[in-house]
């Protein structure tokens, strides 16, 4: 078991090293997301109360939609030859998927951290209960990353994977989006965001089990 976790860490480390070299997620997608956050106030106008209300929702929506690009980058980073290498190394499907999910979750947290100052600067949202954000962001990132590797495993071998991936991820990410926006709203109105955080954790656990199941099915099929 310890060896499998070591393999998982090696795959995550390799994926992050590739991202550091390619710079696709943070150098390309993050500025793109920041521009999207900039465009909305330009479209809405300088209606400060409206922007203040829209801010948290826009932040999480941009994180989800642009995060899909980060999530699905795994497909483009790994060639069939590299996938065969992992299969022949006897790496269980679930371990390979979890390794990739760890790397993606780290990137999504970084992506969220880059977007946060932009949304604060442009939308001036209420900062009540901001410490909750420090737990909600990793929770959402883990959920999206797990969802991404499951979707990727389902569509990887299909010609239309670049369009089918987002189609699978976005609807299934709605509970995470709901949990994230509502926890912010709850904190803003002085209520406890804990129930919404529990929703995110529950979704994460379900997706973790889905990764184990998908990995097992991959091992049986291949």
């Amino acid at each position, binding site marked *: 078991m310890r060896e499998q976790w070591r*393999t998982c860490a090696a795959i995550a480390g390799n994926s992050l090293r590739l991202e550091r070299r390619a710079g696709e997620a943070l150098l390309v997608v993050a500025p793109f997301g920041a521009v999207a956050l900039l465009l909305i106030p330009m479209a809405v106008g300088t209606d400060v109360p409206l922007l203040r209300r829209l801010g948290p929702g826009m932040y999480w929506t941009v994180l989800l939609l642009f995060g899909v690009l980060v999530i699905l980058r795994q497909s483009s980073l790994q060639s069939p030859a590299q996938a065969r290498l992992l299969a*022949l190394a006897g*790496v269980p499907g679930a371990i390979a998927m979890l390794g990739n999910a760890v790397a993606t979750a780290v990137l999504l947290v970084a992506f969220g951290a880059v977007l946060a100052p932009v949304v604060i600067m442009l939308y001036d949202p209420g900062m009540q209960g901001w410490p909750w954000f420090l737990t909600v962001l990793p929770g959402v990132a883990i959920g999206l990353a797990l969802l991404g590797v499951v979707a990727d495993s389902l569509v990887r071998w299909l010609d239309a994977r670049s369009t089918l991936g987002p189609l699978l991820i976005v609807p299934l990410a709605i509970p995470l989006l709901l949990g994230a926006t509502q926890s912010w709203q709850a904190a803003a109105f002085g209520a406890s965001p804990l129930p919404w955080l529990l929703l995110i954790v529950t979704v994460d656990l379900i997706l973790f089990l889905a990764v184990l199941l998908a990995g097992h099915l991959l091992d049986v099929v291949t």
Partner: protein
Amino acid sequence: MIDFAGVGVHVHRTPVLRALDLTLESGEVTGIIGANGSGKTTLLQLAATLHRPVAGAARVLGADLSSAVPAHLRRSICLVGHEAALYPHLTLRENLRFVAAVLGQTQQSADTALDTVGLGRAADRRVRQCSQGMVRRADLARALIAPPKLLLLDEPHAGLDSSAGDLVDFLVDEVRSRGGAAVIVSHDRARLDLVVDRVLELVDGQLVPVRSLR
């Protein structure tokens, strides 16, 4: 090592191998030739347990390919395809160390493998900055990290000069000396005949013996 009897394999629902028979004993090295699209790569991938037969009986290292193959058996197989399994953004050393990590080997084994194939001085160069021959050597070096029982090489001489071609012979001799076996797919009949015990030709999804050039 390999025991295929009447094996049929489909790729994307297209029949590629039909009623194919192949037996490979320990210490044996077999060369495969055939026209483009005859199914040579599919045959190697079947031997690497990456395909399931739709007909016949197929066993590799004692494992029945009609069911899931145990992970420890797969670790005894090394497939070096014509597409290198290296990440272009990483250095040769980082690539080989990653392979060592997933195979449960030490980082030192990766560095030693690079030295053995003559890439010790270029180890910190990124794959995308390397020549095709260097990438090919580094890909072959994977077989030295955890010496396999079954070595499967797809067009190993392509993109290599004659001195680097000797590396292929060295790898095959290493496997053979440890009681392993190898299957080599190549268009280079002259080089192939120097290293293999027999040559088979893949014709219409079936293997037929070919007279040696020696």
